[in-house]
C-alpha cells in the first residue's frame, strides 16, 4: 500500500508491522490496495438509498426484499457476497405502529455493502449499551421523537445476520422519481436513528 507521512506513534507501528507481514509474504501491497478500494469505493450508503427508493415505488420488490433480501438485492445490482463470510441480510420495515433500530451489542456488525463504513457512534459502547435498554431516549438524542404508542424494535446484528431498516416513505413525495426519492434517504434512516 502507498506510504503515508503520519508521524504519530501508532501510524509508525502500523507501518512497521505491515512491512514485517509483507516481508514474510503474509500480505502484499496490491492486495491491501484492493481490499481498501472495495471498501471505500463500492460500499457506500448510496446503495442502501437505492434499495429503499425501489421498495417505495415497487410493492412487489418491497415484498420480495422483506421476505428474502439476499436473493432480491441482485435485482438492483447489489449483493451481500464479497464479505469475509456469508451474511444474511434482514430488511425490517417501519410502519405507522412500529419503528426499527439496529445495533450490534457484541461488537460492530453492520451491513457495510449497503451502508458503507459504520460511523464511530455505532461502534461505541455508549450506543451499544443504551439503545437496547433505553431506545426511546437514544432516538431522542438523535433528534427522533416517536409517539408514545409507537412500538420500538431493536435488532441485534451478529456475524451471520445483518439488518437494514426500510424507512417509511415521507408524505408529499408522490411526484418524485425513484432517483429523487433515493436522495431523501439518510444513512441514519437505514440504521433507524432517523425517520428517513
Amino acid at each position: 500500500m502507498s506510504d503515508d507521512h503520519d508521524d504519530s506513534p501508532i501510524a509508525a507501528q502500523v507501518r512497521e508491522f505491515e512491512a514485517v507481514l509483507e516481508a514474510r509474504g503474509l500480505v502484499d501491497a496490491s492486495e491491501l490496495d484492493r481490499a481498501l478500494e472495495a471498501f471505500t469505493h463500492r460500499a457506500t450508503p448510496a446503495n442502501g438509498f437505492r434499495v429503499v427508493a425501489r421498495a417505495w415505488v415497487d410493492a412487489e420488490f418491497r415484498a420480495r426484499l422483506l421476505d428474502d433480501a439476499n436473493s432480491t438485492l441482485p435485482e438492483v445490482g447489489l449483493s451481500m457476497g464479497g464479505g469475509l463470510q456469508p451474511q444474511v441480510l434482514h430488511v425490517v420495515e417501519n410502519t405507522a405502529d412500529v419503528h426499527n433500530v439496529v445495533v450490534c451489542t457484541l461488537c460492530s456488525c453492520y451491513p457495510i455493502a449497503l451502508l458503507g463504513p459504520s460511523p464511530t457512534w455505532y461502534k461505541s459502547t455508549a450506543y451499544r449499551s443504551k439503545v437496547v435498554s433505553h431506545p426511546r431516549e437514544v432516538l431522542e438524542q438523535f433528534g427522533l421523537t416517536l409517539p408514545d404508542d409507537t412500538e420500538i424494535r431493536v435488532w441485534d446484528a451478529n456475524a451471520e445476520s445483518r439488518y437494514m431498516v426500510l424507512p417509511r416513505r415521507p408524505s408529499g413525495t408522490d411526484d418524485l422519481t425513484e432517483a429523487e426519492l433515493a436522495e431523501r434517504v439518510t444513512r441514519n434512516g437505514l440504521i433507524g436513528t432517523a425517520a428517513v
Partner: protein
Amino acid sequence: MPRINDVGGLDGFGPIDEELDEPPFHADWEAHVFAMNRALIGRGIYNLDEFRDAVERTMSHESGYYENWFRAIQTLVREKGHV
C-alpha cells in the same frame, strides 16, 4: 479480567457522540489496519471468529476502535507463530 463485550443494557458508558460528515477513516493508518485484517482473513491466517475473540480479549475501552483492531491482529499473528 472479565470480558465485557456484550454491553447491551449496561450503564455508565457516557453520552453517544455523533460526528457530522464522519470520514470512513480518521487517519491513513486506520485504513491500513482495516485492509491488513481483510487480507489476513482472506488468506486464512485466522478467521473472523478468531479475530473477534482476539479483539474482545485484548481490547481496552480507552483505546480507539482501530487501535483495538491493530492489537488483536498483532496478537493473532504472533500466537499463530508467523512473526
